[in-house]
């Protein structure tokens, strides 16, 4: 066990625990935007920074392992300022309408979303190049989750990467090709991990656009995929007796929330089998 102090409170945690886990474990509010439990920490959003005695700069708690004797502060003025400015910079750049975690950061830090607004933004046309999911990059906060899910952490497909630099850094399919011309296999694991709604299933997108997506009318049922013999646990999201979305639980030991194209999107047959509904002949 390691012994450390967080906000003046002594705690013991097992070796290998991150500072984030330790702080959250004792109930501290530590916001994260890019961190995801099943992906390598990207350290990109910096919302989870804390003060650690002996470190000149603030430290991203999501990737920092706890050390014996560490003294951590999560509530200092510096920490607050960094988080608030991060929220303000992102809201000055992106459409945050569907970014729940970011909205929470804004309200928690009392960020002034207009403070750095007025400059260049990421407003751009919707990329709607296939019928399985859409890409709405004006909501993208460049958290790297999709890149990691498409790459070494999950899929090993490498259809997307970050291209460009500075404010122009962005997720790219390679010369901005339409997805069907890229290496994409449409597993939708990028959609699964996207924290802002920049990536959205086409069906959900269309239902939302037409005002028919009613969260409270959706029931979610856990079951097992009907395709190959891997045995992926599915969550079927059903609205008006129609499957409108398929996901997998993040904590499932087989899928870790990740599915293949058939499991995630190949569900339409469930609701078109009305062609035999009564015994024949």
């Amino acid at each position: 066990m390691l012994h450390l102090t967080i906000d003046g409170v002594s705690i013991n945690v097992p070796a290998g625990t991150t500072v984030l886990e330790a702080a959250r474990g004792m109930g501290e509010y530590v916001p994260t935007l890019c961190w995801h439990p099943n992906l390598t920490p990207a350290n990109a959003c910096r919302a989870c920074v804390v003060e650690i005695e002996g470190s000149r700069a603030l430290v991203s708690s999501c990737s920092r392992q706890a050390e014996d004797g560490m003294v951590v502060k999560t509530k200092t003025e510096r920490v607050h300022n960094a988080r608030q400015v991060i929220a303000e910079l992102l809201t000055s750049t992106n459409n945050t309408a569907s970014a729940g975690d970011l909205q929470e950061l804004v309200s928690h830090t009392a960020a002034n979303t207009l403070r750095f607004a007025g400059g260049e933004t990421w407003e751009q046309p919707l990329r709607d190049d296939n019928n399985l999911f859409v890409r709405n990059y004006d909501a993208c906060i460049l958290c790297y989750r999709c890149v990691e899910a498409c790459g070494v952490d999950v899929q090993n497909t490498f259809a997307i990467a970050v291209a460009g630099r500075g404010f122009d850094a962005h997720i790219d399919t390679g010369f901005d090709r339409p997805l069907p011309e890229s290496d994409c296999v449409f597993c939708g694991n990028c959609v699964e991990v996207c924290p802002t709604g920049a990536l959205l299933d086409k069906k959900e997108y269309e239902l939302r656009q037409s005002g028919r997506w009613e969260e409270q009318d959706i029931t979610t049922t856990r079951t097992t995929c009907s395709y190959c013999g891997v045995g992926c646990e599915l969550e079927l999201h059903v609205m008006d007796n129609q499957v409108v979305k398929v996901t997998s639980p993040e904590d499932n030991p087989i899928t870790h929330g990740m599915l293949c194209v058939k499991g995630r999107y190949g569900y339409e047959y469930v609701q078109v089998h009305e062609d035999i509904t009564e015994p024949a002949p």
Partner: protein
Amino acid sequence: MGLTTVFGAGGGTIAYEDFHKTDFILLVGANVAEAHPIIFHHVMKGVRRGAELVVVDPRKNLTTRRAHEHLALRVGSDIALLNAMAHVIIRDGLQRRDFIGRATTGFDVYRKSVADWTPARAEAITGIPADRIESVAHRFAEADGAIIGWTLGITEHHNAVNNVYALVNLALLTGNVGRPGTGLSPFRGQNNVQGGGDMGALPNRLPGYQDLTDSEVRRKFEQAWGVSIDPLPGLDQSQMFEAMGRKDLTGLYVIGENPIQSEANSNHIKRLFQDLEALVVQDIFLTPTAEIADVVLPARVSFAESEGTFVNSERRVQRVRAARQAPGEAQDDIWIITALARAMGHPWTFLSAAEVFDEMRLLAPNFRGMSYERLDREGGLQWPCPADGHPGSVRLHERLWQDSPGRPAPFMPVDWEPVAEQPTAEFPFTLTTGRRLAFFNTGVQTQHYPHPDQTGERLDINPADAANLHVIEGQAVRVRSQRGSVTVPIHLTDSVNPGTVFLSFHFSDDVPTNVLALDATDPVAGTAEFKAAAVAIEIETA
């Protein structure tokens, strides 16, 4: 089938998490990146942690792209390769002697059987250079732990069981079974293939792999069910087709299958089905098989409209639950079967899925400790799980590493034989078949969703072959075997070697690939040789 003979149970010996702990992954005839994508995630986690990945497959595909080494052997030459690897391992003294001595039988016979399988001889058959065979054999044998995975590239051959034996032999030779990060793993092609076998959907087995020919076993089931059980094994699928041909079998009840499109030599199968006196099909779709049925019973979608369990490729029993109302009069499979029984004069009452499961686990010790309540709470359990408090079994055959390992695992020496249908002057190409990532089997399920590749079937052909035939990308050709022909546009790709062409059967309504496939079957398992048929490619003249 092969695993049952050697180990007494037909389940993969590993859990997926073993891929994270292994040093060497040998995939044979398994394009997991496309056919089992989530297993591929686990494979690649292992690779990222330092495991070596070697893939044996005639084609380049998304799996071979990520492999450290791809052995693109000739279709059907697997045993030659595997025996030559064993030859090298034994010749160089790399076998695991303590394990062989304690936990196996028949090593001497096996050793003699591979004595002639020099890498040079295997090179001539497989097309893999001898030095690469030597090198892979060394790396495999010297790894602390290795996992061998396979799918239909091994089992959809006329000598399927021998192929499996050859793999099992390699694992026994190197002690790669029953330890963390080691094992043998057949990846099941359909959601509940494992569960079907587990529940006795095999001619010679009762639920839980219990031996039908064992009178003790039979007595237990007879007492429970109140009927006498025929001690003679029933027919496997290919025997059924033969019996239909002889008119010995004239009535068939098909549940959730589309054999007219999914079976090899499907024109022949269709004639057999048309000649039946009674064909009952229970399905969610009016499939081509249902279309010629005498009675069609509308079923509910297994995983979305009814309750039950599936068993996956790591022997995990998992719940399926109804998420939506079934349309019209579609009914649950148990409802239909019990109603049929009542119609036939048997007083079967309708049971819930949980009640059926509880009856099953009373009779099948492997599942006895699993209740629906536990499955719900624990998110699935891996068999064997013989008692209430038992945590389930992450991997099988750990007993082989104990001082008294129990029943030893026998080596099963096998010899290579060529594919049943070799290329001839008239049929110069070898057609091999398989899956594409976005689609599934005959396409009944996957034809309905708007995938960008929903553009129909194509014949994958090497550009050199295409040049010789004077055909260009997208041009329609007729592919003809001794059993039938299909018309399909071609796609030039170096994923297949010259002489080999590839088709899936996902667009069977337009391109009924299986009319070409060979129904030569394995004498033990009854599986057909989908993976190799001799075909001619002819230019369509307008």
